[in-house]
């Protein structure tokens, strides 16, 4: 999962709080930036942005347009956490601080660009990278999430018979239905790979399994042809915090759920659990996550 430090701007331009608004605007224009750090005697008072200067008399001082201290975030935080803070607090910038040291600034624009690369343009769903990041965060908090893999049946055949545009239509259709289902049951939907989707529920499996028949009843129709899918479930069984590395555990959950969804294809109920997968056959899923932009 991409971290804040990879997206932040580390070139920081500062201004004195008693400098004029005119001077601040000139400084922003000269450096082609939209914000300045306001420092007085080495103490950070906040950030002044180009929006703060809009419509203000140029003779005024920066101190008069400063809107209180700016929120900060750790450089190791992931982009979705940063996005949540910005959304909830209604801010467009976060200071990146580690152990009291200012490392950089994260702007909404840079965040939006980076996040955009993590979303699938066809379905609008977040990709595998975000899925893994979300799982890791839940595991770090001591939550054992329930992961449901949704694998379309005979998707390759559908593409061959009806063409890729029909395949794309099927993917959009199921993405929309999975999103609605996930929202209804307080979960999140992801597109993991080509025809594999995933749902995360930050709750025990016992609270998720009763709703899966409802999911399996969903009908996906493309050019009057019904597209079926199979479900694989992993995680959501432990009450205590899982020991070990959250990243490795997240990978393990993804692998088990993916293999279970493959096993489910051969079953009439179209559902299999991770623990039913033969450990000997527990190999990496055949599907590969989307490569990131440019790779």
């Amino acid at each position, binding site marked *: 999962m991409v971290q804040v430090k990879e997206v932040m701007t580390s070139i920081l331009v500062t201004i004195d709080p*008693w400098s004029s608004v005119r001077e601040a605007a000139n400084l922003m224009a000269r450096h082609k930036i939209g914000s300045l750090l306001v420092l007085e005697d080495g103490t950070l008072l906040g950030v002044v942005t180009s929006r703060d200067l809009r*419509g*203000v*008399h140029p*003779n*005024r*001082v920066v*101190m*008069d347009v400063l809107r209180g201290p700016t929120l900060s975030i750790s450089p190791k935080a992931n982009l979705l956490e940063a996005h949540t803070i910005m959304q909830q607090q209604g801010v467009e910038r976060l200071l990146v601080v580690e152990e009291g040291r200012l490392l950089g600034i994260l702007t909404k624009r840079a965040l939006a660009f980076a996040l955009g690369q993590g979303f699938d343009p066809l379905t609008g769903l977040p990709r595998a990278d975000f899925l893994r990041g979300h799982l890791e965060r839940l595991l770090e908090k001591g939550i054992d999430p329930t992961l449901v893999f949704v694998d379309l049946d005979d998707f390759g055949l559908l593409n061959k018979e009806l063409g890729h545009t029909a395949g794309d239509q099927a993917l959009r259709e199921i993405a929309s239905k999975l999103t609605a289902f996930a929202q209804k049951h307080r979960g999140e939907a992801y597109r993991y790979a080509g025809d594999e989707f995933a749902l995360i529920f930050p709750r025990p499996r016992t609270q998720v399994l009763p709703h899966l028949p409802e999911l399996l009843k969903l009908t996906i129709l493309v050019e009057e042809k019904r597209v079926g899918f199979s479900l694989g479930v992993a995680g959501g069984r432990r009450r205590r915090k899982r020991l070990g590395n959250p990243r490795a555990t997240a990978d393990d959950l993804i692998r088990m759920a993916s293999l279970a969804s493959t096993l489910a294809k051969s079953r009439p109920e179209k559902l299999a659990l991770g623990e039913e997968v033969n450990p000997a056959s527990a190999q990496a899923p055949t599907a590969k996550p989307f490569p990131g932009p440019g790779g």
Partner: protein
Amino acid sequence: MAKKRESTSKKQLEVRLSGQVFEIPPLWDALLIGRQAPIGPEAAKRMADSMAPGQFELIRISGAPVEAILIRKTILQSLTPEVLPELLLEELAPLIHEDLVVRVQVEVILHAARTVRLE
């Protein structure tokens, strides 16, 4: 800068002077700072503190053409911070504009009357 030189030119520079005692501080008793005035509340407070340290207090106003009022603390001893802004904004309304800074003299006079019963 004019240079003294020999020429036939008729140009002259006249220098006029006028002087006046500068009041310290030049703020009178209250300063009403418009929302778009060339000086903001923080700058005005800094100016007051540098000329009359500790003598002025800043009261911020929301939803009015006036952003803040800088007021002499001695006046706040007889009029509460809740009453004074309302009074100033109401009475000085014709003068108030968000581009302006208005200085105000505030005179607080106590009127008292008592009846004394004679034996």
